[in-house]
């Protein structure tokens, strides 16, 4: 009791506690990040199928990966998917943000509707859209029929299936672009807009030439998040098309998943995962190199 009241001993025990606490991030980064990542790399150099014993095969998994036509198709599909969906999300999202900024009545209703897709589970979204896209009974074809458009084989034909997944991604993520852009725009000083009006700029011109450049650091962050997310697309596509028809929507992570969980090629799957991680890192580095200086400017 007396000891406890003495300041210095209190200090020492506090110091010890803090030292222990400061080890926690180390344990986290080693135990939960580095260890699994290291074993991923380790097994990527083994011929290891489920039930068998891992046999070291040097770089054979990587050679297989880079000679696998399915892999190239998957890579190409993923990149097209990312460019197309993120591109359209940006265009639509910014347009919607522009509209939101200019309406006052109904803005809060619009905002709460926009939030809906963001709070839904992607796996459920995939199932919902699978029903909506159904060729015979789907709502999409029903409404297209009302417009006089013959039914499309949404999830049955490869091209349509690809576009269905893009549509779902746009449906889910455009609101994200809108909300963040809207938040960024409303945080700008009102004088910026007024000054541009007085200088003679129209509303659209003010938006395009003055306001958007002002929030470009924010736009880069959105772009960054969306690109990384789109490259990793999995759940909604898995529940909607399962990567099909054939390999029409077999995006990288699905390709990886199917190799491990369906074909049980764990060693090969690890090699694919390592490649995905490296690809992500490359893209992140490129984006940050372009955007990084923006964040350090006044």
């Amino acid at each position, binding site marked *: 009791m007396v000891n406890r009241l003495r300041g210095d001993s209190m200090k020492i025990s506090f110091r010890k506690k803090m030292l222990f606490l400061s080890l926690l991030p180390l344990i986290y980064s080693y135990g939960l990040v580095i260890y699994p990542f290291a074993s991923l790399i380790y097994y990527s150099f083994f011929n290891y199928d489920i039930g068998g014993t891992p046999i070291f095969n040097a770089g054979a998994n990587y050679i297989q990966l880079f000679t696998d036509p399915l892999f190239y198709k998957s890579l190409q599909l993923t990149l097209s998917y990312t460019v197309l969906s993120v591109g359209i999300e940006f265009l639509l999202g910014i347009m919607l943000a522009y509209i939101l900024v200019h309406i006052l009545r109904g803005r809060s209703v619009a905002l709460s509707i926009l939030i809906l897709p963001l709070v839904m589970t992607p796996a459920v979204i995939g199932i919902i859209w699978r029903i909506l896209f159904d060729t015979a009974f789907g709502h999409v074809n029903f409404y297209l029929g009302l417009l006089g458009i013959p039914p499309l084989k949404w999830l049955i034909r490869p091209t349509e299936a690809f576009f269905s997944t893009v549509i779902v991604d746009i449906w889910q993520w455009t609101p994200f672009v809108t909300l963040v852009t809207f938040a960024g725009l409303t945080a700008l*000083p009102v*004088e*910026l807009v*007024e*000054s*541009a*009006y*007085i*200088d*003679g*700029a*129209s509303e659209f*011109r003010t938006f395009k*030439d*003055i306001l958007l*450049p*002002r929030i*470009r650091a924010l736009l880069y962050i959105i772009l960054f998040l969306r690109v990384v997310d789109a490259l990793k697309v999995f759940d909604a596509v898995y529940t909607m098309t399962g990567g099909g028809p054939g390999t029409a929507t077999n995006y990288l992570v699905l390709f990886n998943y199917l190799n491990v969980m369906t074909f049980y090629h764990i060693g090969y799957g690890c090699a694919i995962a390592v490649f995905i991680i490296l690809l992500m890192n490359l893209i992140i580095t490129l984006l940050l190199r372009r955007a990084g200086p923006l964040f350090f*400017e*006044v």
Partner: protein
Amino acid sequence: MAEIFLDNITHVFGKKVKAVDNVTLRIENGSLISFLGPSGCGKTTTMRIIAGLLRPTTGRVYFDNVDVTERSPQDRNVAMVFQFIVIYDKTVFENIEFPLLVRKVPKEERIKKVKRAAELMGISSLLNYPARKLDPGTKQKVALARAFVREPTVFLLDEPLTNVDPQTRLELRKKIKELQKDLHQTMIYVTHDQAEALTLSEKIAVMNYGKILQYDIPEVLYDKPKNTFVGWFIGNPGMQFFDVSFKRSNGTFLLDAGEFSVDVSSISNHLIKYGDELKLGIRPENVQISSQKKNGWFNAKCAVVERIGDMYLLTLSKGRLEIKVKIKETDIKEGDTAWINFPLEKIRVYSKSGELII
């Protein structure tokens, strides 16, 4: 260039807050005038109404006898510089060029005009520099250049020097004055800094509670403030006021403050009809003071001696009253007794409600 006429402008924010109350004002073509008043007096709101950024609740705005009340800021061709320094995320050149670009001015003419405006502001060497990296003072120079690059009907300057460092403030104040003389443009300057208003403007509209209390040349504002607010607001410190009663004793007329009285027999015929209760106003710099006893002067005790710039401000107490005296040189120290006189020609008399009588 334009003559601006505000006809009975009232602006109400929400349902209750009257920011501008029945303002009628004619601003002569080519003059530089200021709106001066404390924060929240409605000066910025009035300016925003002139700019077209706000539509007045009632009243009309005329530029050269043309009703522009319904016109957008884009259509009014005004130039405005804000207190909050507005810089676009572009180079200095592109910033200054922007108003010309949106007006589709031909390229050669744009370059020529931008260069001239930059030269006026002394920022020619910075044209290719990203404007957002400049210091606040230089940023405001860019904003001013952006306003001066075209020929607007009127320049609106909304406290443009408030967020600028003191050195640049003096430099820009001089520059604005010179530019106005050269260009002979109508310019409206909003400020709460009377030194700025007094040095810059030909005429000043002193505002409070949304009303224009007095619109006059600086000399008149200083010398004959129309009411006690203007008197108090202009000057450093402003005019001091004493509640006095107008009395007649032994054939002379006195303004009696209790602790002292002033003989006003010579102007008494002006005062008679305003009742017994009046206010006496005098500027601290107009009070005469002496450390020696003088006939007809009254004594007071010096409480505080402060230095303001190159002057001394003495605060003297006389009973419950406090008298401020501003003087170039003095040998009076705190605690001394001094003799004071209010020269009749410097005294201003106000009614009980604060309106100037004489």
